[in-house]
């Protein structure tokens, strides 16, 4: 992807960061503006579109019926998938998910799963036999950097918008009734990614910064200040001090974000 930005511009980004500035006029720890729209796909049980600066991610949630996993017979099933569709970037190609989209999906999945924000036991219809399956499909529509945070927020916003069909079990048979109940969501994990450029930490990197960045670290945190998922990415390293700094940044930014989003 290195051909996207000229070397001169990359150096400019580096030099600015040394002075504590960024090409788009943000401070090192400032995030871009976030805009959320919910419920724009009527055929999906839940949906949300998130703009993080110019990055745009659409998430659709479908709720289906399926079997539980044998080790969790009383719990519904969550599946998260991500598609880096070719409309989003000249560098995305059609075809089966590559390692980047698989990583994206699995990091978002981990934040949702480990925070236990969905009350999984309420998704159980018949223990060991029938449960609701929640499919979260992440569709990246425009790539301008920090897909992980944008997708995590979009996934959460879509889950908050999700309705499950009402049902009743009569003589061992499942009947779908009129009307819907909201998906039982207990808490709101927030994901914050910090990038490292020449030893400096920045939050919410945009696409040109991602070309200069040697590594990133993502923290998903809960309202109570606990950490529920972490992922380091990129071919660089962090010192232990930088890791701790990044975790503090992520916790602070999460508080800020929660206020903004009213989560």
């Amino acid at each position, binding site marked *: 992807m290195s051909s996207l930005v000229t070397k001169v511009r990359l150096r400019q980004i580096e030099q600015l960061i040394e002075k504590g500035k960024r090409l788009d006029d943000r401070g090192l720890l400032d995030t871009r503006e976030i805009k959320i729209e919910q419920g724009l796909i009527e055929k999906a049980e839940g949906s949300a579109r998130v703009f993080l600066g110019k990055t745009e991610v659409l998430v659709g949630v479908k709720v289906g019926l399926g079997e539980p996993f044998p080790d969790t017979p009383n719990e519904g099933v969550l599946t998260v998938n991500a598609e880096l569709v070719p409309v989003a970037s000249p560098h995305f190609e059609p075809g089966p998910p590559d390692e980047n989209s698989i990583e994206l999906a*699995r990091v978002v999945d981990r934040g949702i799963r480990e925070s236990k924000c969905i009350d999984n036991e309420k998704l159980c219809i018949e223990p060991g036999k029938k449960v609701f399956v929640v499919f979260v499909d992440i569709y990246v529509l425009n790539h301008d950097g920090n897909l992980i945070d944008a997708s995590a927020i979009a996934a959460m916003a879509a889950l908050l918008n999700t309705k499950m069909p009402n049902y009743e079990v009569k003589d061992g048979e499942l009947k779908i009734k009129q009307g819907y109940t909201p998906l039982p969501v207990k808490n709101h994990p927030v994901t914050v990614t910090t990038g490292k450029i020449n030893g400096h930490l920045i939050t919410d990197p945009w696409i040109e910064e991602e070309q200069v960045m040697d590594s990133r670290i993502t923290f998903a945190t809960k309202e109570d200040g606990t950490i529920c998922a972490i992922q380091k990415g990129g071919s660089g*390293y962090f010192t*232990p001090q930088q890791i701790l700094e990044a975790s503090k940044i992520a916790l602070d930014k999460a508080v800020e974000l929660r206020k903004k989003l009213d989560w």
Partner: protein
Amino acid sequence: MNEKTEKLIDKKGIRSDGRKADELRPVKLQVGVLSNADGSAYIEHGKNKILAAAFGPREVHPKHLMQADRMVLKVRYHMAPFSVQERKSPAPSRREVELSKVIKESLEPALFLELYPRTGVDVFVEVLQADGGTRCAAITAAALAIADSGVPMRDLVVGCAAGKVDDTVVLDLYDAEDKLGIADVPVAYMPSLNAITLLQMDGILEPAEFEKAVNMAMDGCKKIYEMQKEALKTKYMVVKEVEE
């Protein structure tokens, strides 16, 4: 992460496999175990049994992945179908794709990629038996395999996890602790450079517990680091004796 009535740590602080909180499983390392690879290593980390082989620097395949200004490192982490309780399909799972990526990214900082433009190094990791913490053990073995192949490195990379089981932060979780514990924090570390090259977490941790877990994992890495160096020396000492 089920709630189970049985405790994983007893009143005396001894874990279900007999270890103390900050105790590693037994680790056995062997370098140069495969004659057709340019470099290879075998690790037994508790019941984990993992082979790693390194090939290169060599031509990059497929060719379009070649980079004009640096070497391309490719890693495949793969589990044998018989390595776990339920047979695992040999086709690459999403988990294996992600782990291959993070293992690659944990090894890259150790290599002088810019010194070998237009070449590739391929590392293949085969998990023969898995018992929790395979990505960490795989990194330990993969770093040794690359070192054994003769490709210059800034430092060896060591993998070791820490986590939380019951209410305690513990080192090096094995399968049951990984499944029933509260959190798992795999770490890869270059001890001489004090650089963390892989960090993941799932589960729930307070920030203070997280800090403790990372420190504990780094201490574990330092212990395994000594064994890594010993394993490398052992191979080349033996060769020397034969030549004399």
